[in-house]
């Protein structure tokens, strides 16, 4: 009997049966001595390549999910899905890539004030949450993404956000330089946006 195959059987059964994704450490605990969890997972990934279900990492833990290309065939689009506004999408991206980030920082990047409805709408998705206050004048609240965000977007971790490495390398995620940037930097960024604001 092929030990790796036997271990792969066990891990696929584990991941199918477990009610939550499992960390590599959790998986390793169930394996016989001498079998590395990472090797078994790699074997499983190969076994399931091109199948209708696949093992993927989500928030640092492994689970099986249906192959994304099958979404339309599974008729998943029938589920009513509230579309996010562009303001919400961009704000979420800024929070995801630059967290912890304050509202003034988000506004500095977007060059426009962020309406309450944008934050409220994102809070409704369960994808963002308030973080600790930032130690600058006014002590603004920071914003973070939640585990539900990683789950919804099928991300293993924040480092797996698309283009994360490139953005970091290009210095695009450096919030320290942000506040000197704003060219039009009016003293008050609040209250100057009329109802036209697309984020409303």
């Amino acid at each position, binding site marked *: 009997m092929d030990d790796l195959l036997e271990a792969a059987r066990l891990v696929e059964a584990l991941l199918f049966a477990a009610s939550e994704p499992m960390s590599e450490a959790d998986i390793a605990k169930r394996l016989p001595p001498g079998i590395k969890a990472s090797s078994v997972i790699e074997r499983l990934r190969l076994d399931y390549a091109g199948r209708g279900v696949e093992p993927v990492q989500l928030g640092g833990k492994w689970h099986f999910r249906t*192959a994304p290309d099958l979404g339309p065939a599974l008729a998943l689009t029938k589920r009513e899905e509230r579309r996010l506004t562009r303001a919400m999408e961009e704000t979420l991206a800024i929070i995801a890539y630059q967290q912890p980030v304050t509202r003034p920082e988000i506004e500095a990047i977007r060059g426009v004030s962020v309406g309450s409805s944008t934050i409220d709408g994102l809070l409704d998705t369960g994808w963002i949450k308030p973080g600790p206050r930032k130690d600058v004048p006014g002590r603004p609240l920071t914003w973070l993404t939640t585990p539900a965000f990683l789950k919804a977007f099928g991300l293993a971790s924040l480092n797996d956000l698309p283009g994360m490495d490139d953005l970091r390398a290009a210095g695009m995620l450096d919030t320290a330089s942000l506040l000197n940037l704003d060219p039009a930097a009016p003293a008050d960024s609040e209250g100057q946006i009329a109802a036209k604001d697309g984020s409303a």
Partner: protein
Amino acid sequence: MEPEQGEEWTVDLAGYEGPIDLLLTLARDRKIDLTALSISALADQYLAFIAGAKTARLEVAAEYLVMAAWLAYLKSRLLLPRDVPAPDGRSATEMAEALAEQMRRLEAMQQAAKRLFALPRLGRDWLPRGVPEGLPVHKQADWTADFTSLLRAYGALMARRTPAPVLTVDPGLLTSVEDAMARLERLVGTLPAWGDLRSFLPKGLQPGIQSRSALAASFVASLEMAKAGHVRLRQDETYGPLYLSQRCDAGTAGPVAPEEPSDG
């Protein structure tokens, strides 16, 4: 308030997420490079756009106008032969570069948002396991016990086994119902009228079990005799003294005084 026709391009601010977004869009549409050198050209485009919007009598949000004023200022500074620093210490080139940097940043985040929202999404593109069976859990107890508590438990058990004090009564102290009845039969005829039950008890009873036993036996005996029709019983109040007399007695006299105080 119909927008005037024949504009060079359609003026509509509703589609933009603020002035930087508008600048970015203009740069993209007009293929203007985001270097400090071309910011002047971009400023022209922006100012023209805002002018167009005003001509079309669109409501232009203040932030767009602030940016327009700032760009006009920047452009005039850039046109100066010598780059004189502004009051805030920044040269026009630095200001232009700051603007370009902010545009690049917003552009980067806009692209990030696009890529983020292009990811396969839970519920739209993929589903997790529908109904996971769950993993069986075997509970294993880690027993803990405290030695002192164990010793205490044993000590209490052993203490319980040492003989407990037992109530022992000398049979000679007790009066039987039969004896009491015989005594009552004998005495009741000798009394002139109603007599307190207690007055029929023998003298010299020890207080406590001996007295109580005699009283209880006499009470039961009196009930038996009343049932048999030999005596009559009377009690004037609840818990009051019980009187008895011979059946044939007319009950003319009051109760006699007890022979001795009762401890009942």
